[in-house]
């Protein structure tokens, strides 16, 4: 792939086609991941988008990878593509390590207590995205000289059976001297936060579109919901949140594309996207009424994900403190406008 806006459109079309061939996974309460979807994406080279061909990826720009992740997030695809394309994959390459084959899922965990000694990783990794599903895992770990990035092949190591509110696997691994590749940790946490922000933004845009559509179709008291001023106010509030999130996340991604430090931009994007979730999800359910509360309706596939994604990779308070500490001081304005 050569990159550019047309290629991005093509990538999005391809992902949509793949998604359309699948029933959207009803994760809850069965709690599974979508192995078939992963296989098809891998087949089409979409699990390596934005990762260089010479490293085993499919090439293309970061913008293409962001488009793939956003499209899958909006479609509630139950596959670790955000983790692989935006977090673990780039972090592995930035650390100078060997990228595992891109058709084998690679994920990330940033919680728990882990240490590396003599090239072996030990401790417990908690809240690992897609635990039990992925083959390879990237984590930050304490090394003899400070924090490092560690990449391990999990083989058939068992994970604890736990899930987030959408049923996406989020279990723990107990690691007992597993051989690890080790490199500089870089902006792993910020990348993870930004990836979740990208997913949140795409999901929120979709939830807004669904809610606008529903309000235009659903008739109550003889008129479409959309004709009630009270409903219009709610939709305008949602649109305000979605538009603000979208612009900021987009700007943070552009920093990443330009190769600039992204920690504070990612912090801002995660804080803003996380703060929008309560408004967007609550109003979407409010406008949809009881039908949106059912498992049959599509709405929950995104709202339950949004509720979990905002807490994963650091919640608003965690990142707000990072951001606040960077802005605090004698010259807050230059500090602020330097962020994105």
């Amino acid at each position, binding site marked *: 792939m050569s990159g550019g806006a047309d290629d991005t459109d093509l990538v999005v079309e391809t992902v949509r086609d793949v998604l359309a061939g699948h029933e959207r996974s009803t994760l*809850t*309460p069965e709690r599974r991941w979508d192995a078939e979807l992963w296989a098809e994406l891998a087949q089409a080279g979409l699990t390596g988008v934005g990762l260089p061909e010479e490293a085993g990826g499919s090439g293309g720009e970061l913008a293409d990878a962001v488009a793939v992740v956003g499209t899958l997030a909006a479609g509630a695809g139950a596959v670790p593509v955000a983790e692989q394309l935006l977090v673990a994959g780039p972090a592995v390459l930035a650390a100078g390590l060997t990228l595992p084959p891109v058709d084998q899922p690679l994920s990330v965990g940033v919680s728990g207590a882990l240490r590396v000694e003599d090239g072996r990783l030990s401790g417990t990794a908690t*809240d690992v995205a897609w635990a039990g599903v992925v083959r390879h895992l990237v984590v930050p770990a304490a090394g003899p000289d400070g924090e490092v990035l560690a990449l391990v092949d999990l083989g058939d190591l068992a994970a604890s*059976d*736990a*899930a*987030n*509110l959408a049923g996406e696997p*989020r279990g723990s691994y107990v690691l007992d001297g597993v051989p690890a590749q080790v490199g500089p940790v870089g902006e792993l946490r910020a990348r993870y936060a930004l990836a979740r922000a990208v997913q949140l933004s795409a999901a929120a845009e979709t939830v807004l579109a669904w809610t606008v559509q529903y309000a235009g179709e*659903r008739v*109550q*008291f003889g008129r479409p919901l959309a004709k*009630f001023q*009270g*409903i219009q106010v709610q939709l305008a509030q949602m649109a305000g949140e979605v538009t603000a999130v979208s612009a900021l996340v987009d700007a943070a991604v552009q920093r990443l594309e330009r190769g600039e430090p992204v920690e504070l931009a990612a912090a801002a994007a995660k804080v803003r996207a996380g703060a929008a979730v*309560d408004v967007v999800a*609550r109003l979407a*359910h*409010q406008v949809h*009424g*009881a039908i*949106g*509360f*059912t*498992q*049959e309706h599509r*709405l*929950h596939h995104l*709202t*339950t994900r949004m*509720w*979990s994604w905002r*807490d*994963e990779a650091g*919640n*608003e*308070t*965690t990142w707000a403190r990072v951001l606040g500490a960077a802005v605090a001081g004698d010259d807050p304005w230059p500090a602020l406008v330097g962020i994105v």
Partner: protein
Amino acid sequence: MPSTLTLAPAPPSEAAERVRLEVREFLAAELAAGSFETHVDTWLSGVDPAFSRKLGERGWLGMTWPKQYGGHERTAMERYAVTEELLAAGAPVAAHWIADRQSGPNLLRYGTEAQRREILPRIAAGECYFVIGMSEPDSGSDLASIRTRAVRNGDGDWVVDGAKVWTSNAHHSHYAIVLVRTAPADPTARHAGMSQLLVDLSLPGITINPIRILDGGHHFNEVVFDSVVVPGDMLLGEEGAGWHQVTAELAFERSGPERILSTFPLLAAFARRASSEAELATLGRLSARLLALRQLSIRIAAALDRGELPDIPAALVKDVGTTFEADVAEEIRRVVDVPASLDSPDPLGRALAEAQLHQPGYTLRGGTNEILRGIVARGLGLR
């Protein structure tokens, strides 16, 4: 302040404080014995007939009803204390909830003597459960648009056709009180021609289909009526007065402690570990909101007991109270860093997950907040 909003204080009640302590002791013993586990939103999801029967045995159901119908002739304040203790503990009260709160009082008001003698003692014993059949697939908040109809046949019985949705726990219940059209819809009098029927859910022609909510839980159902023959004497109240009866009923159900305390078990789990300044401030803010709502709710219960119909404050409690229930999870998750998960090893993580996954329900049940704000606007003299 507009007089429609003012409420006199509830009378102090030693009897209420006595029974409150009895319930607290009972709950502590049951929890210790492992007879139930604390959960969020148990008045919807905590079905446990054995637990309901225990409450019945202790005289904590049908508390305010006449003794001749199995009641205990206790005060509204005593009943209030019992129900809020049960909710605060996250006890499994869903099986009997609708029957005790709503259907029993409905039967007392509109039922025939035979209906009362037959059914009320069983409700008070914790053995007979009810569902409310109001909403329909296409009606939403607009109850005047319902289409389920009942037609008298040659024997004077009612033949019912249609479907009701959002019937909580119909699959565990014995009766439904169903709002039906008994006369064709009249566009010039949208609220005329409706009646309430008391329907035995075991009658032939009734199908109960589950409606699972977003966490996969089965609490709601669709109840389908296919030429169900309901005996003629099962009309509840007056033919054609269904709209009026239902409206009064909704006002009653809006202001109880269950509009404030659905997520209290989460708040309690948080309170058990709150220690940082930020956590204590959040706990304090939520506590102050809860205490204010509770004062309102208690005052409304006292007013209802005096025979008043404080429908504007009741709508306010439901509007502000259910927003509070949702905010509990939102405020707590901001200051703790515990992932919300039904599988969490941490009780706070589980309570957060339960509270979040049930959130859309708090504000929707009992009339959307838009409808409630319309009632308030009318009470302020704006409509």
